[in-house]
Structures are given as structure tokens and as C-alpha cells.
């Protein structure tokens, strides 16, 4: 995982702002699938939706602490070789530098979200504050 400060918001094919409510994730996922179908990238629906769900859930529950007055911004850009997702919350951020890339114990019922996103992604980068994540997914890679 790394840090990024670049913004490609103007190039995004999908740019949404949703309240910090888990039910708001479903319409975003529907738009993701629709966009991928239009680009004939149906094979990417599962990995892209997995990543988007994990990052959106994290932003809503942990980033914004479930405070519905805070929003989560979502951006998606579909390129020829890569799909880029950007998820930003209005929270204090977290120290991604100490986040270890390791799986939790098999019996642990939590702690897999970011690891799942990382497993499907080509690259994951956070801003300095840790309240925005950018994820790149290689379109040549079919699923896991």
C-alpha cells in the first residue's frame, strides 16, 4: 500500500456522493455493474464490486463512523487496461502505514475488508490523512 495525492476526478466515468448509510452502497453497485456492462467488461463485475463494497463499507462505518450527515465520495474511471476506484470519506482518516498485509486468524469474524480489496486489486494507495483510498484493478486479470 502506498500514498497518493493525485486527483483524477475530472476524468471519472462515475462520480457519486452518498450518505453514510449502508443501504446507499447498493445503488452504487448497480451503477458500477451497469457501467461495466456498457464497456463489455462483465467479467470484471465481481472483483470491482467486491473492492467497491469493502471500501465503501469501511468509509461509512469506520471513516465516517456511520454519521449519516457525513458523505462518502465515490469515483470510478474505466480505462483500456485498468479500472480505477476512488473512495473518500469525511472522517479523521487512519494510519494505513501501520496496516499489515496479513490475513486475520481463521476464527476471526472481522478484519478482512481491506485485505479482500487488496487481493483483487493491482494497486491500493491512500492519501496522507488516510481518508481517501484509490484502487487500480487490471482489466486483463479475470477475477482472482
Amino acid at each position, binding site marked *: 500500500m502506498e500514498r497518493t495525492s493525485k486527483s483524477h476526478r475530472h476524468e471519472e466515468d462515475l462520480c457519486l456522493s452518498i450518505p453514510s448509510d449502508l443501504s446507499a452502497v*447498493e445503488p452504487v453497485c448497480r451503477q458500477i455493474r451497469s457501467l461495466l456492462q456498457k464497456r463489455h467488461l462483465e467479467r470484471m463485475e*465481481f472483483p470491482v464490486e467486491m473492492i467497491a463494497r469493502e471500501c465503501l463499507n469501511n468509509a461509512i462505518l469506520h471513516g465516517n463512523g456511520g454519521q449519516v450527515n457525513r458523505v462518502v465520495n465515490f469515483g470510478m474511471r474505466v480505462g483500456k487496461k485498468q479500472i480505477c476506484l476512488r473512495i473518500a470519506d469525511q472522517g479523521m482518516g487512519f494510519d494505513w502505514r501501520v496496516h499489515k498485509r496479513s490475513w486475520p486468524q481463521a476464527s*476471526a*469474524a472481522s478484519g478482512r*475488508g481491506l485485505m479482500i480489496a487488496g487481493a483483487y486489486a493491482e494497486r491500493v494507495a491512500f492519501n496522507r490523512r488516510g481518508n481517501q483510498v484509490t484502487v487500480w484493478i487490471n482489466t486483463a486479470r479475470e477475477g482472482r
Partner: protein
Amino acid sequence: MSSYRMERSDGGCRVSIDGGLTAVVVPELQQVLKQEVEGGTQRVTVDLAATYIVDSSGIGLLIAASNTLSHKSGQLAVVNVSPEIFRLFQSMRLVPRLNVSGRATTGPAHE
């Protein structure tokens, strides 16, 4: 929109998930499963035949249910899993722990 339905039979229950086993349905499903297990159910089968995605919250729910049932000498099974979800469980080495099996229509999935 995701939903679920539950059927009881012979000391066991079968929960079928339609859509996604995701964070938005997990809290309600957690309560339902908790009540079932506290009520004496020892075999829980989670049927994912109509499920296209499972997120980390859904996985957490299955692991928590498996943990609780194993303490009561019960067992959880996750059946009719799509190939993509099966690969997800495989990558996390959860196939044996959650007794995961694939969809018959797509051929038996093997770890």
C-alpha cells in the same frame, strides 16, 4: 435488493440468501441465526444458490455462526456457492472451516 428466507426441519435450519450476503443484511440475519442457535438448532445450512456476492461482513457472519455452533457440537454448511465466491472462500482458507460446497449446475467445486 437482498433478502433471505428460512426453513426449519429436524433440528436444523436452512437459510437461503437472495442477492448479496453483505453488510446491509448481516445485522438482521445475525439476530435471526442467534435466536435459532439459542433455540437449540444444531445444523445451519446457508444456501447461496441465488447469491451473487458475499462481502467481508457476510464472511464474518458465517465465521461467527460456525464458531458458535461448534461450541455447541453443531455444524454450519455453506452450499450452492458460485465459482467466484468459492474462489474467495478458498483464498481465505475457509472452505473446510465453513463446509463450503459449490453449485451442482456448474459442477462440483474442489479446493
